[in-house]
């Protein structure tokens, strides 16, 4: 591949030099005024148009097919399967338009190349045809908008009541993960409380925060709606997980959310892809600084039972950091303004996971 590229570059250079020398000869005889000759080069360009189209489209088709599997990693969410279908339907529509217009463009260029003695057809407009080719795209667009709108409102609609909830917080340059603990309520956090240990800014004076726990990566059960609460504590980030067709910005000062239903466990995916190292990854997809390109996290999709078991094992942040808890107790309320809890009352997460079975 690289060799090919280098070869190409060399050929290019040769062509350039060849031309430069020719040019010198040509321009050494320059003089007088310029009269344009329409000759051989017009024919050559016309033929090149055709060649470019045929070879180009063939190469495009070939490379598209050759790369098709690589560009389509398996999808593992319910809405992802829907949008995928819509994506390829749209691709087929625009593919057809692409071929028709490009063929028309290059074939016309070839076919209507200059011919001695021929005169172009004086044809300034045709209202009927213009109406037709305005209305048809309009109808197609209307169809696409309608499909997209339905899907979009489903995806962005409220999460089902039985969703498992968790919070992802972006920071330079990793994602922090927080679960609501046994009470199913994410406690309030405040950016002024953040320090090296209390990375989230837990307010441990609040009852709801006491059982919240943090995790190194995201764990979610298969087949259950998962509601991600997303925030950032410094600059913009975006939680992007291509296998799930999930993407949402993490915005400082404005919590966002996204919900989805995973359909395959990590293990199932490993088996399916034949890659024992497979992991669902979260990539940061909004430029955030030096480490942007490596700002990632992992989503582990488990069978609901495993998830419940994992959940039960976790120790709350307060429990793991008694000194932080003690500091809160001593200082009473060091915080003046309260950031409202990200989530309102919801049944305990563990119960929900079980209920969804």
């Amino acid at each position, binding site marked *: 591949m690289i060799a090919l*590229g280098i070869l*190409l*570059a060399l050929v290019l250079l040769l062509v*350039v030099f060849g031309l430069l020398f020719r*040019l010198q000869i*040509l321009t050494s005889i320059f003089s007088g005024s*310029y009269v*344009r000759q329409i000759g051989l080069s*017009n024919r050559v*360009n*016309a033929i090149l*148009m055709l060649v*470019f189209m045929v070879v180009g489209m063939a190469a*495009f088709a070939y490379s598209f097919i050759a790369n098709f599997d*690589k560009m389509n*990693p398996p999808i593992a969410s319910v809405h992802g399967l829907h*949008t995928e279908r819509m*994506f390829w339907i749209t691709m087929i529509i*625009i593919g057809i338009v*692409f071929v028709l*217009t490009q063929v028309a*463009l290059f074939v*016309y260029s070839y076919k209507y190349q*200059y011919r001695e003695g*021929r*005169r*172009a*057809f*004086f*044809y300034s*407009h*045709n209202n009927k*045809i*213009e109406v037709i080719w*305005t209305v048809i795209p309009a109808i197609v*667009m209307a169809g*696409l908008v309608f499909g*997209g709108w339905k899907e*979009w*409102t489903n995806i962005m609609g409220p999460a089902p009541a039985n969703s498992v909830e968790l919070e992802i917080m972006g*920071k330079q340059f990793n994602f922090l993960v927080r679960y609501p603990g046994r009470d199913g309520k994410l406690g309030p956090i405040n*950016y*002024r409380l953040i320090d090296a240990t209390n990375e989230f800014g837990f307010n441990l004076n609040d009852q709801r925060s006491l059982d919240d726990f943090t995790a190194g990566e995201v764990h979610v059960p298969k087949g259950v709606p998962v509601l991600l609460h997303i925030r950032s*504590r*410094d*600059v*913009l980030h975006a939680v*992007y997980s*291509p296998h799930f*067709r999930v993407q949402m*910005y993490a915005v*400082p*000062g*404005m919590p*966002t959310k996204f919900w989805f239903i995973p359909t395959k466990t990590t293990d199932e995916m490993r088996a399916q892809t034949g890659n024992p190292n497979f992991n669902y*990854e979260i990539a940061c997809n909004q430029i955030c*600084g*030096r480490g*942007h*390109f490596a700002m990632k996290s992992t989503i582990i999709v488990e069978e609901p039972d495993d998830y419940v078991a994992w959940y039960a094992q976790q120790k709350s942040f307060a429990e793991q950091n008694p000194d932080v808890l003690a500091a809160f107790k001593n200082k009473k309320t060091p915080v003046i303004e309260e950031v409202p809890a990200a989530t309102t009352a919801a049944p305990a997460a563990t119960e929900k996971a079980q209920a969804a079975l």
Partner: protein
Amino acid sequence: MAATNIPTGGAHAQEAPHVQHHAAGDHHDEHDHHDQHWLFKYVFSQDHKWIAKQFLISGIVWAFIGATLSTLFRIQLGWPEAQLTWLEPLLGRWVEGGKLNPEFYLALVTMHGTIMVFFVLTAGLSGTFSNFLIPLQVGARDMASGFMNMLSFWFFFVAGVIMFISLFLETGPASAGWTIYPPLSALPQAIPGSGAGQTLWLVSMALFIVSQLLGGVNYITTIINLRTAGMSMAKLPLTIWSFFLTAILGLLSFPVLFSAALLLIFDRSFGTSFFLSDIYIGGEALNHVGGSPILFQHLFWFLGHPEVYIVIMPAMGIVSEVLATNARKPIFGYRAMIGSLIGISLLSFVVWAHHMFVTGMNPFLGSVFMFLTLIIAVPSAVKTFNWLATLWRGNIRFTAAMLFAIGFVSLFVSGGLTGIILGNAALDIQMHNTYFVVAHFHLVMGSSAFFGMFAGVYHWFPKMFGRMMDEKLGYVHFWLTILAAYLVFLPMHYVGIAGFPRRYYAYTAYESFNQFGDLNTFISIAAIMAFFAQFIFLFNFVYSIFRGRRATENPWNSTTLEWTTPVEPGHGNWPGAIPAVYRWPYDYSKPGAPEDFIPQHIPYSQTVSSNLPYEKEME
């Protein structure tokens, strides 16, 4: 200053055509100009043609700078493991132990985008062709205000100097992406480029916007007021229509970017919180509360989306003109072309939030903007069909300009179609900020606008410099460039469909994004090839200015007014009276006419043999 003695075409526009020939003021004082100091003739010139050349040459310089930056980051992406010690002489401390500094990578991407979008494809393209063609094609002696026009260039120039200086700062130039989203762009703690580099970026852009506004006011005024006798709006070449609407878009949208930049300056330097809230960074909780980073994005894209049309519409105008001239056919659906330009202009103000579907903006807004966005595809489609119909049954001469115009249509279609995917909010969830978007806009905006610009340069070079560019070199330039453009940007779609995020320094950290190593190398090779192909153009351009074959007055047998001027039009454009206009600009291959073109200034009384029934009464 002598230049102010020039009578403007406006005075004549009101006179009857026959009076014009005797108007005393027309014979402007040539001798005045011989006295002109060279400084005012070549540097602080108020002549629109000279200013156009100033814009063109600055644009070319900027394009090479921008392309060099992209070559650097393509090297990084194509060969992420390579030792880049050999770049040390050029980049100095930005190469650390043979590796490019990741922050510098972001700076490269940011400056590449800024330079290409604003300095090349906005100032370089509109600045060159609006300035050059508006007075010549509407039949005016110069712009409405030569002085403001000169200021416009010099504001741009100073903006450029500042932006250029920022490349050499200790902390690096702006690095938050060309869209400079805060908080990243507001906080030097977040990335060093957001220190002095970002300050200079904002100052430079503020001056740039002033330049755009000065230029825009001039373009609009000139088109409205200084058209020659007979040149009604319905007889304007499509170039002028596109420059006109472009200038209006700029006038309405750039001030919004200005305000966004101003508010950002306030947040950065004066402790306000327009865009900042709840931030803990560098071990410290900042005092900003209540601001919204999303607000900035609304302001930015309120300019940003019209901006992409500011870039493309002049190219559309140029292409329409070049296609008609070289297909020897009237542009198909002249009125529909104007209508679709107006439609695009209006719609371009109500689609901006399609850049923000997944920012957490209210999903209902997403639905509205999805609807409006997909509507804008309709006028774009109409334009494409009209260009195709213009070629149909033509008699095509493949000049270099014509090749680039055809290439423009091809690239515009390829890139525009993927807009239909991105405009669908449900699909954009996956595609947003991936290489799919990068591919989309580099085809539809980047490559096509460049092709439009090349078409323009090859086409109007004879009028600008009185000489011809070499056609053969033009052919080679075209074929290499279109090949390279497709080789670079088509594979980017594949990478994007797989979900590769843009603005990544390397993909090595991910299991999900390591399948396309080869393809990234391939893209980089093609990009470098594209870059080298541009030197053919550069050589041809510079060489032809001095040594090209001499041009004739109207080398392309074209119908518009600029071709009625002398080979090298002097100050005031026409040595005698400004010609009056009688017909639309696309009378090519009219049945019954002896030649295959009838210029706009030929009255119907002289073309009895070819007049259409409804034109008879105008004889």
